[in-house]
Each structure stands twice: as C-alpha cells, then as structure tokens.
C-alpha cells in the first residue's frame, strides 16, 4: 500500500480546499499520510487538524506555492515516511 495520498486543491475556491482536505485526512489508513498542494497558506486548516488529532508539516511546494503533509497522531509509520521526504525531524509538540 503506498504511503502517500496526493490531493491538489490549488484551483478550488473556499471552502472546498478545507472540506476536501479534512475529508481526505479522515480517510487516511494506518501508515498513510496526505500530501496536500495549495496555492496559498490554508488559513483555517491547522486549528481544525489540531482539534481532530492530526499532525502536519507545511513547506513551500515544488509544484505549488505550499504543500502540507498531514498524518494521524501516533501513526509513527506515516510520520517516518514524511520525515524521509522532508529530510528532517518533525517537531509535533504544538
């Protein structure tokens, strides 16, 4: 089973990026992470991810302005997969 679930919301108007990202995050299976591509900082996403027990990491994207990696709290397999991609340890102590 591939680790990555890719979701490109770059061309969607609000609130579709938020809705689709939360839907896709909820559908993640153990070991999977979501790689969400967006044209701008998702201003209401992170608080919602916190409330729903997801971890995340945002960085400038390669093909989009922003990319956000999202995985379930305590899913160490998914977190390790994200670490391998971004090449650094992730601070999830928010």
């Amino acid at each position, binding site marked *: 089973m591939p680790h990555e679930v890719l979701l490109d919301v770059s061309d969607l108007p609000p609130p579709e990026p938020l809705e689709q990202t939360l839907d896709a*995050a*909820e559908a993640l299976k153990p070991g999977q992470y979501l790689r969400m591509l967006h044209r701008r900082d998702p201003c209401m996403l992170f608080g919602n991810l916190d409330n729903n027990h997801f971890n995340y990491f945002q960085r400038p994207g390669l093909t989009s302005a922003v990319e956000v990696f999202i995985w379930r709290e305590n899913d160490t397999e998914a977190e390790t997969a994200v670490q391998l991609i971004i090449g650094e340890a992730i601070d999830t102590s928010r």
Partner: protein
Amino acid sequence: MRADLSLQQAPPFSVPARFLVSAPFFGLLAALILLWYGPEMISHRWSPEVLAVTHFLTLGFLTMSMLGAMMQLMPVLMGMVFPRAVLFSGIIHTPLFAGILCLGLAWLMQIDLLFIVALVLLGFSFSLFIVLTADRLLRSANRHATRSMMLLALLALFFTTCLGIYLAMGHGTETVPLARQLTDLHLSWGLLGWVLLLISAVAYQVVPMFQITDEYPVIVQRWLGWLIFIALLSLSLTYLWPLEIVKTISTIVLASCLLTFALSTLWLLHKRRRLLADITMRFWQLAMSCLLLLTSVWGIATLIHADLPAFLLGVLMIHGFAMSTINGMMYKIIPFIIWLHLSVHNKNLRGRGERSSQVNVPHMRKIIPEAAALWQFRFHLLSLVLLLLATIWPLWFFYPAALLFAIAQAFLLFNLLKSVRFYNKKLAELSTFI
C-alpha cells in the same frame, strides 16, 4: 466520515451580519431621497439633500459594511480576536446606525441639534472602533501587508472623522465657522484614504483566495498603501502651506496609485486559474473599470483644464468603484460565514453522536442563488450607467437612474435578508437538538 470543523477565531454570525445587512438599507434610503427630491437637488454641490445622500452612501453603505467586514475578516485572516465580540459590535453598530440617520435628517430637516447628536454618536462609535482595532492590529504577530494597510486605513478614518466633526460643528453651531474649504480634504481622506486603503488591504487577501488568482505583486502590496497615505498627507499640508508643486506631485502619485491598483487587479482576474466567472468577479471587474475611468477622466480634465459635471467623479468613485466592490464581496462573505457556522453546529451534533440530527449544509453558491445575484448585478450596473448619464443630462436620466438604484439596493437587501432567514431557519432546526 468527515473530520470536524472549528470556528477558530471567527466571531458569531450576528457580528458581521448586522453591519452587512444595514448597508443596503442606507443605500435604499439614499435612492428614495433621490426619487423624493428630484433632479433639482443636484443643481449645486452643497445642497442639503446631496449632502444627506452622500453620507447615507459613504457612512451608511460603505463604512457600515467595511466595519462589519473587518470584524469578520481580521480574526479569520489575521488571527486576531475581539474580546466579547457581540457586545463590542453592538456598542459600535447602534450609535453608528443612529448617528448616520441623525446626520442625514439634520440636513434634510435642517435641525441644528441633530448635527450635534450625530457627531456625538458617530464620534463615539468611530473612536471606540479605531482605538480597539488599532490596539489589536498593533499587538498582532501577523506581518502581512494587509496589517499595515489596515492600520493606515484606520488612521485615514481618524482624520476623516476629525474633519467631519469639525465640518458638522460648522453646520450645527454658530460658534464654529463652516470651513467649506476643508470639504475636499475630508472627502479625500474618506474616499482615497479610508475606503481605498481598506478595500485594497482586503483585496490583497480575498482576490487571490476567492477568485483563484495569483498573489498581487509584492511591490504593490508593500508600497501602494504607503504612497497613497504619504500623498494624502502631502496634500493636507498644502492646506497649511500652499505649494503648487507639492499639490501637483501628490495628485500625480495618487492617480498613479489608483491606476496601479485597478490595472493589477484586472490583470490578476484576467489571468485567473479558474476560468469559470462568478458574480463577485463581475463586480470586481466593474469596480476596477470605474477606477480606471475615474482616473483617466480626472487626469485628462486636469491636463486640458476642462470642467467636469459636478457629480461625475463622485458617482464613479462611490457607486462605480466602492459600492460595486463591497456589493461583490458581500456575495462571498455572507455565504461563507453561513456555511462555516452551520458546518460547526453540525460538528457539535456529531461530537455528541447525533449524526441523524444534522442539517443539510448547502454549497456556498446555493446560499445566495447565482441567478438572484446576477439580476441584482444587472440592476446595479444599469443604475450606474444611468446615474453617470444623469450627472450630464439630469432632466432626462435622473428619475430612471434613481429608480434603478432603488431597485438594485432593495434587491441586495432582499438577497441578504433571505440568506439570514435561511441561516436562522437552519439554526432553529439545529437548536432543537443542541
């Protein structure tokens, strides 16, 4: 299964709604005054009816909706929280609403005491809003250009208010002389400072977000607001030290800023990623075209020393640019906050394991139907064209223009009230379970 939504810092629905719904009420009132008094009222610039209509539009429509939009957007876009938002918005909205009515009635009925009541109410409302909002903005960790632009806009509102209070005292008391020479400065700070600065500050965020465009160029975001503000300050100083060269340079800078903002917005919209046009985009395009036309007409008339019809630039700026922009943004802001609040209420039910009690939250585009918004846009556009013609041939076009303007404002009020009713209905369905 869906993850839950949270309101984050978004204020309760009633906070922005009371301001946004009040705006077309004043727009309609202005249109009815035009119809009642007829074309004679625009025979000269200083007629009391013209001053009443102008303030119903600039304070009642523009400022009213801009304060409501700020209270909604600042928490969501910039992470700032207004403490006790419902109480705060009530304390701002009530004297603002009453103050605008008193100011208009003071001119229409020629009651001096009403000027004093109006300036106390408006002075209180604006001072409180400016102080508390500036305090929140200064404390905010957000460093987006929108923050500094909003601070400059608030400062411009402060200067506009001070000049306005002084002018109103000239109307309402015998101890203070009526300083008509300050009127142009008052309207420059109001329209080019407060209105233009705030609209551009918000545009930097909402145009890329809702119209799916690239970001505004960094140089525009960083410097445009400062240039406008400095040019307005320089213009103000020429009232104390009349230096023609400073006045000329300031005017050129202001005109260049208007052109830059209008052209960059039109360019972004032209190059948008999503080709599907929505109603808000039509309003943006109309508003920016008016800004271009305004600047061109103003520039050409200044160069060739031609006299323009007295109200041409005012109609282009207030109705064509500012009201079009705000009207368009209302069709995004209201459906978005209704969607957000209903989704959060649904979430509360899910959190309590009562999924069967959830209400159906429609897509944002369905909350105010596209067809209703499109018809309202058509009436708005037609009223603008007729109002422009009425500034040149008032006897032919004044009444049709005023009638179309009244229909456009009544239609907007109807669309907004219908969406609020829809929200209340859904909320009532939910309340039986929450």
